[in-house]
């Protein structure tokens, strides 16, 4: 039984990572209709920045996480302005191609700069909490807490703040948003900044809990999209349930079957859900 709870907890931890990634993809797609394939690459690159800050400057991991978040936010805003905005009114295929190209460029630049070997971020303290025989490392707890805080914060921001309402307005009716005086370019930048900030946190934790390698950008974003579609495009609770479901399934799948199929489980469960509910678990758009 303990092994069951351990797997469940591990699943929730990895699910948190997917939630952080998928929420960014979700608001970016929900508001701007951009399939931001470079999102995982932003997470990866920011994770490397956190790695450098820790390994070269001996920084505390919290400082590294914050620097990673700031770095990702800036990169996200730059990508929006420089790469996506020029094609904002062009056919959707243009931003699709640009997104793919950005993913490849960032992953390749990372390989050139950081090499293709895996690295991980060393923490100075390694406390482990025991609940019976179920264990949770200090760092994993931090990921759970960070995810909880960012998700709750984003939810409150979107629901109650003036800017959050403006973001929802743009996602629901861009023209009406312009009519009431919303600067839609500014909203696009904010959305990219917010979404990328979450990716920055995710990237740093990937380095702290597991390992960083340039190709993880592509792997991560595919998982992120799987979560998004599983949960139902644009649904906040759907993204959270979807992330947890994929994280948990993956952990049980690996334990019960084989780790060589690790990346398969997410897509098997995705296909099963879509067969029965084509719009995803909470399908029905609307932030």
């Amino acid at each position: 039984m303990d092994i069951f709870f351990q797997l469940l907890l591990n699943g929730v931890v990895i699910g948190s990572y997917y939630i952080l990634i998928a929420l960014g993809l979700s608001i970016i797609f929900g508001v701007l209709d951009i399939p931001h394939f470079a999102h995982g690459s932003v997470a990866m690159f920011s994770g490397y920045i956190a790695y450098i800050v820790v390994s070269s400057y001996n920084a505390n991991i919290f400082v590294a996480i914050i620097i990673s978040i700031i770095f990702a936010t800036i990169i996200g805003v730059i990508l929006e302005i420089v790469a996506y905005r020029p094609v904002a009114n062009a056919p959707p295929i243009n931003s699709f191609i640009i997104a793919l190209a950005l993913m490849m460029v960032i992953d390749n630049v990372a390989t050139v700069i950081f090499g293709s070997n895996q690295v991980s971020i060393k923490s100075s303290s390694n406390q482990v909490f025991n609940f019976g025989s179920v264990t949770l490392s200090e760092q994993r707890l931090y990921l759970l807490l960070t995810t909880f805080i960012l998700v709750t914060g984003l939810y409150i921001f979107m629901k109650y703040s003036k800017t959050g309402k403006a973001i929802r307005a743009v996602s629901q009716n861009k023209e009406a948003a312009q009519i009431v005086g919303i600067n839609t370019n500014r909203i696009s930048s904010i959305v990219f900044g917010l979404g990328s900030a979450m990716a920055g946190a995710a990237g740093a934790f990937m380095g702290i809990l597991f390992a960083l390698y340039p190709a993880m950008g592509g792997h991560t974003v595919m998982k992120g999209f799987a979560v998004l579609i599983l949960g139902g495009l644009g649904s906040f609770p759907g993204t959270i349930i979807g992330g947890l479901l994929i994280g948990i399934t993956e952990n049980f799948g690996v334990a019960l079957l084989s780790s060589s199929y690790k990346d398969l489980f997410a897509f098997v469960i995705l296909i099963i859900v879509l067969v029965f509910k084509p719009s995803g678990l909470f399908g029905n758009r609307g932030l």
Partner: protein
Amino acid sequence: MSLKVNNLSIAYKGIEAVRGVSFDVKEGDITVIIGANGVGKSSILKGIMGIEKPTGGEVLYKGNNILKQPANKRSSTGIALCPEGRQLFHKMTVQENLEMGAYARKDNQINKDLEEIYKKFPRLSERRNQKSETLSGGEQELVAIARSLMAKPDLLILDEPSWGLAPIMIDQVVSIIEDINKEGTTILLIEQNANIALKMADYAYVLDVDGFVLEGTGEELLKDKKVQEIYLGA
């Protein structure tokens, strides 16, 4: 003069939808533009609001050429548009829609105005926490009008507010617009329903594909032979 449009042209992908139209909206008036489907009425409004970039001409509001300002500054200059087809934020509540109408305002009277609006539109007050997509078509039109009023405009532009409404609802919308005008707001009303629009008009223009073909007071146009034939089905 509230609004003065000079030689405004708008094109979509090189195809001209509006060819050099000029018209005036006098302060305090209800000015009406009637015209058949597809002659460019809504495009003119998109040009005025900065949603489409005009290919030529100027739009003077209280003497300033507003085309030089970014689109999102339009509503803070005192112009509000109640767009064709309502264009509500469908997943937002009625109240959130109204709050969005006041988005560009910086003053602290917004909550007070919201309560005023609810007094004026009791139906919306009852439904303030309901998502706007769950409302009937008539109620949605009221939300759209109320949302544009939340901007506290000096000039309110309405694009076919009678569209798709039951006759009893049309009467209500007409009297709401007349009330808004009596309280001092200048109105520019776009309509295909010439019969109701011309009765409200202080001054009116008839638009067809070649531009404005007729203008005059509401009474003059109601009596006009051509208007009666084409737009009033007489």
